[in-house]
């Protein structure tokens, strides 16, 4: 490489209690290059970019910017060097407008002039924005566009994007890639963090692969296969889970008719007229971008937000609409919500106590109001053994478990209750590949044994890997489920963005 690197990291290390997030990492980014930082969940990608952006300080190592050693103490100094960042969990302020959100990230200036610059920049790069709408009102895609535009307004030499496509439809992803290629053509560098191999292969000029906090390899992703990249990223071959056997009986396990739910969240999405059914021996997958009513649907099905405003929920042919969560479990259903810590599990209670949380009655642990703790302890041990949960023991606190192990514990706790119906949201979100494969396998085994499952996921790969039939949730409405073999990723992607693009055009016309 004859060109002087724009950014060069040497020997970066960063430790947290109980884990070394970055271990002696080197990284070099050339001007005008789209550089991938590839790695599994927990490989240390986020920590590394937070160090580059000045949010975290490295324990050791050097950062050189245009050949000179620099100390980046805070995001402001990163920005003044010319580094911009788009966070995975956006750093937006919900109750503020697009314009205010942009202004907060820039030096003090006149808001009217800023509005003009914002509109010009957005237009130049083909990014649709509405300056006066509040952030809570916006789709995930538009939130991301705010972040990108507010970086661009600072004329950055390096733009960092952390898992940007996890909230986008395939079509939105294509638009984003076009924008990124334009930026690279202007001579800007892009550091692109991802664990999605195909994206990296199609977009990036170079890739640095991290695993377990260490730099494993530098390569040109276009010259690699998805398989070879995966092996570098994960360190071994991961067998994809086998499917389940065909349904023996076809009885209905869950029937939802014209369900309408008002969100209990201030900025939530209402569910409108949703109908579908789940049969024994099949998995119905619901795809969709986060924030389109998945949480509301999940909580309505589990009975956590009370009876729906309209419509009916039947679990194993019993009307469950008016029932609470425990009564629905008694009918034969179990639930794995998206939020693991704080909803599915209590972080400052032990695994034994957490085992009791949802199994109290299904497993008969309560007698005259008294808890059979020895019995619960036995059950907790069973979960740990059967689902290969790595913990110091059944008395370990939930907060001491890694994300993947906690999810294996939660899924295990539900599946060992031998349900006839499993309803699970984002089963492997943020979980490492090994745990994800194990969870998928357990779900398939349960279905082969004759249960039915509803899987809500924003990961399209997961939806296609598991589902017999696929439906798409968008803006609180559900598309009619179709057999998985009859739909393509592109069709699903269109449905994911469908009603939103209509409403956005409409509101644009009003503005």
């Amino acid at each position: 490489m004859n060109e002087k690197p724009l950014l060069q990291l040497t020997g970066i290390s960063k430790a947290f209690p109980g884990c070394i997030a970055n271990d002696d990492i080197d990284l070099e980014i050339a001007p005008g290059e789209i550089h991938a930082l590839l790695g599994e969940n927990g490989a240390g990608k986020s920590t590394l970019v937070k160090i580059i952006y000045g949010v975290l300080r490295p324990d050791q190592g050097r950062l050189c910017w245009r050949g000179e050693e620099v100390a980046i103490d805070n995001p402001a100094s990163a920005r003044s060097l010319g580094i911009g960042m788009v966070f995975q969990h956006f750093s937006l302020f919900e109750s503020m407008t697009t314009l205010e959100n942009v202004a907060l990230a820039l030096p003090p200036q006149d808001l009217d002039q800023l509005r003009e610059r914002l509109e010009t920049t957005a237009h130049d790069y083909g990014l649709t924005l509405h300056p006066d709408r509040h952030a809570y009102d916006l789709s995930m895609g538009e939130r991301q566009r705010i972040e990108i535009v507010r970086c661009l307004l600072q004329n950055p030499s390096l733009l960092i994007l952390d898992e940007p496509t996890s909230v986008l439809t395939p079509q939105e992803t294509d638009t984003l890639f076009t924008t990124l290629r334009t930026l690279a053509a202007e001579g800007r560098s892009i550091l692109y963090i991802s664990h999605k191999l195909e994206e990296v292969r199609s977009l990036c000029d170079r890739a640095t692969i991290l695993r377990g906090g260490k730099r494993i390899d530098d390569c040109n992703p276009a010259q690699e296969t998805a398989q070879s990249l995966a092996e570098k990223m994960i360190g071994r071959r991961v067998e994809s889970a086998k499917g389940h056997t065909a349904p023996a009986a076809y009885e209905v396990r869950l029937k939802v008719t014209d369900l309408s739910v008002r969100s209990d969240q201030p900025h939530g999405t209402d569910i409108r007229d949703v109908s579908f059914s789940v049969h024994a021996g099949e998995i119905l997958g619901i795809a969709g971008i986060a924030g389109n009513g998945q949480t509301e649907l999940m909580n309505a099905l589990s009975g956590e937000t009370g009876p729906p405003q309209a419509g009916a929920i039947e679990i194993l042919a019993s009307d469950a609409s008016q029932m609470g969560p425990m009564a629905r479990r008694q009918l034969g259903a179990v639930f794995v919500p998206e939020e693991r810590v704080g909803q599915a599990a209590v972080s400052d209670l032990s695994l034994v106590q957490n085992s009791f949380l949802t199994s109290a009655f299904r497993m008969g642990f309560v007698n005259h109001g008294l808890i059979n703790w020895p019995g619960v302890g036995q059950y907790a041990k069973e979960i740990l053994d059967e689902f290969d949960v790595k913990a110091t023991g059944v008395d370990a606190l939930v907060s001491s478990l890694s994300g993947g192990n906690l999810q294996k514990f939660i899924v295990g706790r539900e599946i060992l209750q031998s349900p006839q119906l499993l309803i699970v949201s984002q089963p492997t979100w943020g979980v490492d590949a090994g745990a994800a494969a194990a969870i998928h396998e357990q779900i398939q085994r349960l279905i082969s044994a004759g249960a039915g499952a509803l899987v809500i996921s924003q990961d399209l790969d997961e939806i296609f890997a598991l589902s017999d039939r696929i439906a798409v949730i968008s803006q609180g409405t559900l598309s009619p489920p179709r057999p998985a073999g009859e739909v393509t990723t592109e069709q699903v992607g269109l449905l994911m963005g469908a009603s939103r693009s209509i409403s956005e055009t409409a509101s644009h016309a009003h503005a």
Partner: protein
Amino acid sequence: MTELLIASIMTMMTAATPLVFAATGELVCEKSGVLNLGVEGMMLTGAVFGFAAVTLTGEPLLGLAAGMMMGLFASLIFGVLTLSLLSNQVATGLALTIFGTGLSALVGLDYVGKTIEQIRAIHLPVLTDLPVVGRLLFGHDPLVYVSIVLLGLTHWFLKHTRWGMILRAVGDSDQSAHAIGYPVIAIRYAAVAFGGAMAGLGGAYLSLVYTPLWAENMTAGRGWIAVALVVFASWRPSRVLLGAVLFGGITILQLNTQAAGLGVPASFMSMLPYIATIVVLVLISRDSIRIRLNAPACLGRPFRAER
């Protein structure tokens, strides 16, 4: 009759003023995401030190300054515990109220029964002497005007200045504000300190203008009413004034009906402000989603920056 009405309105304003001070301070504090339930304690601290300063020096301005300073000092104890040591904000606020009650009772022992010269109402030639509107517009004590100006300034600051926007941002998402690079803890310290100073000023107003004397526990729940006022105002400064005047009005109603001798026992009339607070809370809180829309999203949550 007109005379009685004018007098009532004048007293209503003086009853409202300490609430305006304390509630405005608490509002700014809450806007930054910090719930300080120690307003009652800070008001008492301000009241006793303000009164002591005036007794010792005879300078009313010094008394107000002392009240503000000591309210601010008390709030900093709260700040250190909740912001630097990450203690529970509700528990710490209660501790501050208990502490302020005890401290003020102890300091105030020497001042019970003492009298001072009250801060007088202003008197502008010609203007104040105008019939009816003269005194209503130009006849209050100076702090009544200060409190209204303060509210206006707070509104302007929060809505139209960059620092106001930053303060709101910190209360909306401390994590985002930190990620962009704002010093979340420092900003919250400033907001807490402002809240303390204003509660102290409100307390000093009570002991220097409203009564004017010192008595143990003289705030009689006004600090808590100020906290309730912030909820009532849906975190909007303009509505604080409305709420404060409403409570001032209830106080006056209570005094007047007692004087008129309607046969309602005095104790029951004295319950009115507290019952009114409950009624108002119930009315305003009914729509839980609306409350959550208006409340700063990070209210009451501890924040710790990872480095």
